[in-house]
């Protein structure tokens, strides 16, 4: 019998394993890995000029890069040939039905964090108001993870909203456009603050200096195409390191279906995907870290509950293009990155709470990914893309997860997850932000805002929320699932609320906290 069985190897699974390393721990996962990569080194744009043909690298012999042409849209980061392992088989292994929620799940080692934006945000006291834990409960775990993975950034005006990071690596280099936005913001800072807008540098789990044996970031624009960049933290790094040092046991190729508590432990039933047979694993404790959707499915399947509707949270998004007219026709900055350049906080009129925005450049995707979304003829769109890209930034605005009771996740008897999530922006915040940016010379219009479908943020949470006094399908402050003795939920499913922030860093910290308590109970 294992001391603990951990289901999943994403941010929650990796840090649950990290906390329990050295004990008799089993990590169970499907665990897909990237394909062998043939020589994709250098800068994306230099490669595109130098190599006659990058079909294999950017489109793929299986036409993976054409995914969104003939299938339901997924994030551009998930469809390139070397990145598509992240979402391999997910719709087959965990089918989802919805008319308004474009869910995505990952069965890769490291989970969806193989393609995360690496944005690192601490939850503040306000963010944790609905949680039965407070900042002091998470702080030491944030610090420990920060040291482990390395975070670049600055403790600037955003520190009150994102938490102060004690050990920051130097911030990433800004593009000319982002640098110009920040300079202009600083010149009119007081005016922006009166409108509830604060701006600063992002904290990213991206190394700007070598750290823990990993190399620094190269500004090569390959985030959309090349997995396992050593500079961008991936939970798979931690799992692989623990396995290499014999600190945990990893078994891949298993899809966990259900669990059953019995005297002295928990029996986990998983399907061996190679043989198709079901195998059982015994642990004194079970830590569910299969991602919010995966964990919810396991819990509902265990209870054979095809009626209950669990709550679900996700960050609605608005994408606002910003144009700097003086940079039209400028040379494209090819030594750039597809990662966030700047962050802002908006808490002015029309805001249902604190909104968070991330400003990106436009050098990541292929032009063909976006050409057909503009309302001009194809040739005109191509001309606009060619000359306007260097003058364009994208502000991705995140809203807090909506706790509307009509939003739910349910398991159907055939194993399909049924999800409903309704949200519509009143565009007040977008209009205010557009007006504010206009004052510093960046133009946009509400009509140009795009609203990715719900589910596109990949920030799923809150299906089995932590409560001070938990009830059915809820978890306690220690992550233990109500009605169980030794079943813990350590991923986003146990979040009580979802502020307008990437939740990955908090998933890691909370998983570390919960698993440390499990470890203490074993000792």
């Amino acid at each position, binding site marked *: 019998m294992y001391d603990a069985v951990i289901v999943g190897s994403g941010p929650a699974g990796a840090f649950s394993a990290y906390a329990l390393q050295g004990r008799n721990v089993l990590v169970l996962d499907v665990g897909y890995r990237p394909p062998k990569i043939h020589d994709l080194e250098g800068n994306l744009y230099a490669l595109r000029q130098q190599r006659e043909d990058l079909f294999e690298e950017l489109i793929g012999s299986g036409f993976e890069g054409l995914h969104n042409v003939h299938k339901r849209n997924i994030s551009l980061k998930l469809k390139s040939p070397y990145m598509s392992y992240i979402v391999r088989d997910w719709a087959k292994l965990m089918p989802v039905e919805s008319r308004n929620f474009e869910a995505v799940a990952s069965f890769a080692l490291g989970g969806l964090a193989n393609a995360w934006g690496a944005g690192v945000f601490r939850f503040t006291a306000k963010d944790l108001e609905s949680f039965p834990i407070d900042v002091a409960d998470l702080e030491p775990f944030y610090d420990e993870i920060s040291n482990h993975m390395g975070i670049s950034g600055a403790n600037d005006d955003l520190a009150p909203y994102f938490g102060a990071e004690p050990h920051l690596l130097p911030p990433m280099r800004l593009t000319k456009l982002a640098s110009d936005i920040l300079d202009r913001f600083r010149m009119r800072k007081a005016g922006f603050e009166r409108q509830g807008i604060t701006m600063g540098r992002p904290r990213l789990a991206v190394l700007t200096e070598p750290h823990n044996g990993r190399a620094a970031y190269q500004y090569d624009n390959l985030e959309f195409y090349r997995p396992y960049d050593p500079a961008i933290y991936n939970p798979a790094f931690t799992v692989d390191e623990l396995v290499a040092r014999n600190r945990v046991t990893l078994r891949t190729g298993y899809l966990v279906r259900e669990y059953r508590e019995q005297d002295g432990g928990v029996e986990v039933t998983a399907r061996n995907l190679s043989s198709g047979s079901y195998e059982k694993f015994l642990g004194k404790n079970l830590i569910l870290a299969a991602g919010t959707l995966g964990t919810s499915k396991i819990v509902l399947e265990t209870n054979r509950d095809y009626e209950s509707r669990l709550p679900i949270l996700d960050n609605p998004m608005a994408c606002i293009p910003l144009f700097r007219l003086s940079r039209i026709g400028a040379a*494209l900055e090819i030594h750039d990155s597809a990662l966030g350049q700047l962050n802002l906080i908006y808490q002015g009129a029309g805001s249902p709470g604190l909104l968070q925005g991330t400003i990106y450049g436009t050098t990541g995707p292929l032009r063909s990914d976006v050409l*057909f979304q503009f309302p001009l003829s194809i040739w005109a769109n*191509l001309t606009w893309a060619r000359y306007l890209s260097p003058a364009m930034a994208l502000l991705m605005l995140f809203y807090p997860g909506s706790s509307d009771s009509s939003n739910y996740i349910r398991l159907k008897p055939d194993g399909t997850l049924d999800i409903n999530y309704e949200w519509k922006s009143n565009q007040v915040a977008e209009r205010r932000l557009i007006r504010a940016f206009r004052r510093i010379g960046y133009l946009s219009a509400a009509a140009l805002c795009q609203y990715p479908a719900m589910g596109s943020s990949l920030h799923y949470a809150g299906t089995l929320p932590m409560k001070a006094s938990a009830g059915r399908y809820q978890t306690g402050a220690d992550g233990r699932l109500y009605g169980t003795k030794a079943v813990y939920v350590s991923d986003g499913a146990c979040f009580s609320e979802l502020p307008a922030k990437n939740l990955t860093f908090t998933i890691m910290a909370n998983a570390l906290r919960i698993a440390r308590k499990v470890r203490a109970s074993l000792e």
Partner: protein
Amino acid sequence: MADDRTALESEARHFHALFFRRPLPGPVVERYVAANRLCFPVLDRKAREMVETIVARRLDAEAIELALRLRKGSRVLTRKIQILFYLVEVRSEYYACFINQVPGWWRAVLRLFGAVVRSGWKCAKGLYLVWRYDFV
């Protein structure tokens, strides 16, 4: 299958000639055929006839695509042209078509203005062609 291949090759050549003034590379034709077989294993009759008519009569696919896109009509033509664009964008000889290599503000602004005017013309032409040939 042979007929299907010939039709797809003709499509690729017709669409390519509308946007790029250079010969269509052989590997792109091969990939266009394979990609279409993957993305459109079965095309409904109406969409198939529309594409066949556009290619046979050498109609302005750019104009028709814009009209259909703005009217939220069939997306087949958009997707077929998008496939072609993906396939050429990853080749170095097309790099300058997608990425500006000659910085210059006035030149860029004039071209952007020209692109808008051209779009207006293409839209009017496309709406006429959609009406004339009953493409929906």
